[in-house]
């Protein structure tokens, strides 16, 4: 077989892509007259050397795990869900509605109900594009982009006209009741003489995200549905021949995808802001694309990629605080990661394949 070994495909190609993205990012930092080594040290210092830094890093990681899994489910079914952002916005609406209007006795109950609400609202927002793709052949990429904008308009309307408390100026809901506020890492791990994670937003939803990774693995590689989704991604005609309905797979995959994006809102609304604000998603829906590409749509890869982006996000915030490098540096890095691990994949892969073929011949 003139192919690379599996380990090279799974590990080496992404690593080289990330290395290329990192080198280019360093050049960008140099070009705007800053020192990339100092910048990196500052990012590590701010994101990883203090427990509060970790608290922020893991908070962002939680978001990116959910949106990464969201993009990955769609990738497995050979669809490109750019709508994670909109689905997360609408998911947030679901969380806000249950938190504001149901009097919960305890946060555990609130969390369980909110998980269902967030997932259902996110899935519902993915349902229409999924139906249109499956039944009417409208391209899911375009419809999900359009639904992002529609979601933003819907959320804007609901926040400004319906859920905004009387007299408040900013488009946001009232504060959620005390009983629905999730315990943060500070509540869970800090003791009187060891104040860990002080003031940082990481909360119990992080563990939910890790659970979601495990569930994702189980679904994709240990259930019939996961097999059907992956088979559909490989060959639609084969799936049809095997008697699996492409319409059902398209819709179910997108529902799962949208539900995962919606659950991201648990972290940002119940976990952090404790109310629903207009820009709760902060572009995390799009970062999920980078995370899924980098993690090769595998839960372990997604977890690591989400951790990396969490680090970048928190580190980037530190940079913006202490240096003249604006936060947009992270957007550039994100773009480079998407470019190299996604679009320019062949640029890295083709020379590597040739190299392995050449090495293989020598051995034989």
């Amino acid at each position: 077989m003139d192919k690379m070994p599996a380990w090279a495909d799974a590990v080496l190609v992404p690593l080289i892509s990330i290395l290329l993205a990192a080198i280019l990012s360093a050049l960008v930092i140099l070009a705007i007259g800053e020192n990339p080594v100092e910048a990196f040290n500052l990012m590590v210092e701010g994101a990883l050397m203090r427990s509060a830094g970790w608290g922020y890093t893991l908070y962002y990681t939680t978001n990116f795990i959910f949106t990464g899994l969201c993009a990955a489910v769609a990738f497995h079914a050979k669809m490109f869900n750019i709508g994670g952002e909109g689905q997360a916005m609408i998911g947030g609406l679901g969380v806000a509605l249950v938190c504001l209007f149901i009097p919960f006795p305890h946060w555990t109950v609130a969390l369980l109900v909110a998980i269902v609400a967030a997932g259902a609202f996110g899935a519902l927002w993915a349902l229409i594009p999924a139906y249109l793709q499956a039944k009417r052949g409208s391209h899911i990429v375009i419809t999900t982009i359009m639904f992002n904008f529609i979601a933003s308009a819907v959320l804007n309307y609901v926040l400004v006209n319906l859920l905004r408390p009387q007299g408040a100026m900013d488009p946001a809901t009232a504060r959620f009741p005390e009983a629905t506020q999730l315990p943060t890492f500070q509540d869970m791990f800090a003791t009187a003489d060891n104040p860990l994670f002080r003031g940082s937003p990481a909360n119990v939803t992080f563990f939910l995200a890790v659970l979601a990774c495990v569930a994702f693995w189980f679904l994709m590689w240990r259930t019939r549905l996961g097999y059907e989704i992956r088979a559909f991604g490989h060959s639609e005609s084969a799936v049809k021949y095997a008697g699996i309905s492409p319409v059902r797979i398209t819709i179910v995959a997108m529902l799962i995808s949208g539900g995962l994006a919606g659950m991201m809102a648990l972290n940002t609304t119940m976990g952090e802001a404790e109310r629903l604000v207009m820009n709760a998603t902060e572009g995390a829906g799009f970062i999920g694309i980078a995370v899924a590409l980098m993690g090769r749509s595998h839960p372990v890869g997604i977890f690591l990629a989400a951790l990396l982006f969490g680090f970048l996000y928190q580190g980037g915030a530190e940079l913006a605080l202490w240096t003249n490098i604006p936060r947009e540096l992270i957007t550039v890095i994100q773009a480079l990661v998407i470019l190299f691990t996604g679009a320019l994949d062949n640029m890295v892969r083709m020379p590597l394949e040739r190299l392995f073929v050449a090495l293989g011949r020598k051995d034989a």
Partner: protein
Amino acid sequence: MDFMTLLQVLDSTVRLATPLLLACLAGLFSERSGVVDIGLEGKMLAAAFASAAIAAVSGSVWLGLLAGIVSASLMSALHGLASITFRGNQLISGVAINFLASGLTVLIAQSWFGQGGRTPSLMGGGRFESITLPFANALRDVPVLGPIYAELISGHSILVYVAFLMVPLSWWVLFRTRFGLRLRAVGESPEAVDTAGISVVGLRFAAIGICGLLCGLAGAYLATGLQAGFVREMTAGRGYIALAALIFAKWRPVYALWACLLFGLLQAVALRYQNIDLGGITIPVQVMDALPYILTVIILAGFVGKAIPPRASGEPYVKER
């Protein structure tokens, strides 16, 4: 609503439709050649920044325009490298370009001008002045037609007229020249073009080049015509509205004009009136904001006509061996 108000709304429709139209035609050339381009937004943004920055530094709007075209073309070249040369996923490449432009513009603007990611306001020669067409003032007093000529048709910057002239020009290039025939063929059936001994890669790069040029014009108009200077994310989703208009127009230049004017009108109305009161029913401004996208989804769903993209769009061409 009196006649003058109507004219003012239509006048701002023309202004707001111009960047949409240029970007839409840019996408038209690209997608007709089989290269899907969701990076219109990013290219426009890069061009807007480059044109505003160079115009601010040099004081010449023409140098700014040139810089805008160059930067959008560079983004196009990147898209071509990823999606034509290395046969990568065109959608992912487009997404990457959008983020690249969104990040780099603010990063460079902050580094050059230190004004929080914006360029200094453009003055005098740094902007495209509005052009008063001949006899506009003399004919102003002619009833009905006079104000229409003086307010609506006259008094735009040169790029507006360029954009509207691009519509017949694009139609002529695409449907009346050999190059246009080949370009459309490569989007429908690249293997046939290849069999005829014409370079698929060459044609697609040519199409992407035109796309870069037009996006450059669109971005430059945003920063130096419509507004005076660059601010972060100033394209504000126009690239996606242009994409929507392209689908709405079913990948045809003249339809693109109407689609862009319609979406421009929606923007103009949303800009002028916050909430529209239609005798008891109030239409909130958010509905106007979302309407282009909703209309596009309805068109895509095939309930009103059917939008069929060029057959080979989105697929990299692999020569058979």
